[in-house]
């Protein structure tokens, strides 16, 4: 396991990705090593409101000169994310990372690997795609959003899929780009069309993940979902972020997740 640290970080850049999402890049002096699916707990301000850190998945990590740059994609939804969007380059913050487990990228026994992202669920999926592309492992990627203007980073996704001869399937609810309808529909159509899918790795809004959970359960597909539970500590001590497993137990998703194989998850995610 990569040792978690409370990293001193500085804002390298804040850049809009869509109307509501932005890219935040942080520079750390200490080495940052993380696998796709892992996340960090980011301090949003120096004062006591907002009190808690916020959880964000890694969209990528790269070494730049002496430092390490952590890339995150953040949707502005409340007070913490609003403060983050307003950060000026150079501002200091703290990032507790890497936390949680990651997607299982290796060890596919048969069929193709499908990455599925919905909306702001893209960051860990993009990270996985770029890692897979760099390692030369083939995969297909399906990315859905409400409308064309909310699909972003298409060039990077296209480059990564192209590098390994995979498909990039885009979907929008309103049909303004790519296939019309939800992203799980695209996956179902591939399955119906006879594509052998050996594993699905997904991140996105709850309804999408539940639909995938149902699909995977019905078809006996190997699938892993990255879940988002409200978190206070991110390190397993508050027991705030629990997810119900198949055996009825409640486990902290910051430690045992955020990525869970569908077969381990309770009813809520499978029916």
């Amino acid at each position, binding site marked *: 396991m990569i040792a978690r640290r409370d990293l001193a970080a500085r804002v390298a850049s804040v850049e809009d990705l869509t109307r509501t999402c932005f890219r935040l890049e942080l520079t750390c002096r200490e080495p940052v090593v993380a696998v796709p699916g892992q996340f960090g707990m980011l301090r949003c301000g120096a004062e006591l409101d*907002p009190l*808690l850190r916020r959880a964000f998945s890694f969209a990528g990590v790269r070494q730049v000169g002496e430092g390490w740059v952590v890339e995150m994609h953040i949707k502005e939804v409340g007070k913490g994310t609003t403060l983050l969007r307003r950060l000026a380059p150079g501002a200091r913050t703290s990032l507790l990372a890497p936390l949680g487990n990651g997607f299982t990228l290796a060890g596919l026994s048969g069929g193709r690997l499908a990455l599925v992202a919905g909306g702001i669920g893209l960051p860990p999926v993009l990270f996985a795609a770029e890692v897979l592309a760099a390692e030369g492992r083939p995969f297909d990627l399906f990315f859905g959003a409400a409308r064309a203007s909310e699909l972003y980073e298409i060039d990077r996704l296209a480059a990564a899929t192209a590098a390994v001869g995979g498909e990039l399937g885009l979907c929008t609810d309103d049909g303004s780009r790519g296939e019309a309808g939800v992203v799980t529909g695209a996956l179902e159509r591939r399955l119906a069309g006879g594509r052998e899918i050996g594993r699905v790795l997904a991140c996105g809004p709850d309804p999408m993940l539940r639909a995938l959970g149902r699909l995977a359960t019905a078809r006996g597909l190997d699938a892993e979902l990255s879940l988002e539970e409200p978190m206070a500590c991110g390190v397993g001590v*508050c027991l*705030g972020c629990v997810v119900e497993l198949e055996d009825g137990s409640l486990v902290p998703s910051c430690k045992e997740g955020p990525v869970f194989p569908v077969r381990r998850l309770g009813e809520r995610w499978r029916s």
Partner: protein
Amino acid sequence: MTPDLRTAVGDLRLANPVLTASGTFGYGLDLEDLCPPERLGGIVTKGLSPLSRRGNQPPRIAETAAGMLNAIGLQNIGVEAFCSDVLPELRRRSVTVVVNVFGESPAAYREVIARCERAAGVAAYELNVSCPNVSAGGIEFGHRPAALASLTAACRAETGKPLWVKLSPNAPDLVGTAQAAVDGGADALSLINTLRALAIDAVARRPVLQRGYGGLSGPAIKPVALRMLWEVHRALPSVPLVGIGGIETGQDVAEFLLAGASAVQVGTAVFRDPAAPLRILGELERFCAAQGVAAVGELIGGLQWL
């Protein structure tokens, strides 16, 4: 001059006055990489019951202004797992361990203590009395002085080790319950537990937490905690107190010591900063040095009132 940070809660000597609060630091080792427990005054475990407990359905937490609500539902691994899997390592590291105990009946509290007595490495017990007393129809033990006195006496009978009772800030009569705990044989009182509170999701028209009510902790409650601590200290000046509630800085610790605490516990601050207890200890040391305080003991109860 390096300030002398040693303190004592009754007979229990502590290397320094900063402990972790129950439910915010796991069982003492969970954050050892980020905040080594052996460098603290001690750790208070997550509340332990005779058997492991699953706790409440999520959502269990909600952020509020400078605070948070929780309704974890006392999920824990059970006293047996703690004694066999965690305690030996804590002991090996010479961590001062306070076991936070709860149950739905006096018998359950006794059972937890009895199990720990058979193990080595527990320095003291802290009774969490903010749980519904099944035999009293679900009213919290901490709300009725008579029930609290007899619960404390029952636990007292199980151990010769220091016994702390953790007071609920929601009790109708704070000083009365404090007195009852002392009458029942408590060696010290820790306060405060969380304030009963409610967060509402106006869009969903539902409580944010699945359980409805939750307990408010964090900096928001610090002024209430200080008030209650001082009230109890004034009423019962000879009873050792452990201060809890919204501590975020070394200066906060000094405030609690002045109000009568012999030691403090850091809770919610850990979620913001997992190394908070150590950071706070360093700040306390610097505060003492800057103020010419040679020993933290000088601060205890030192508030000049009106």
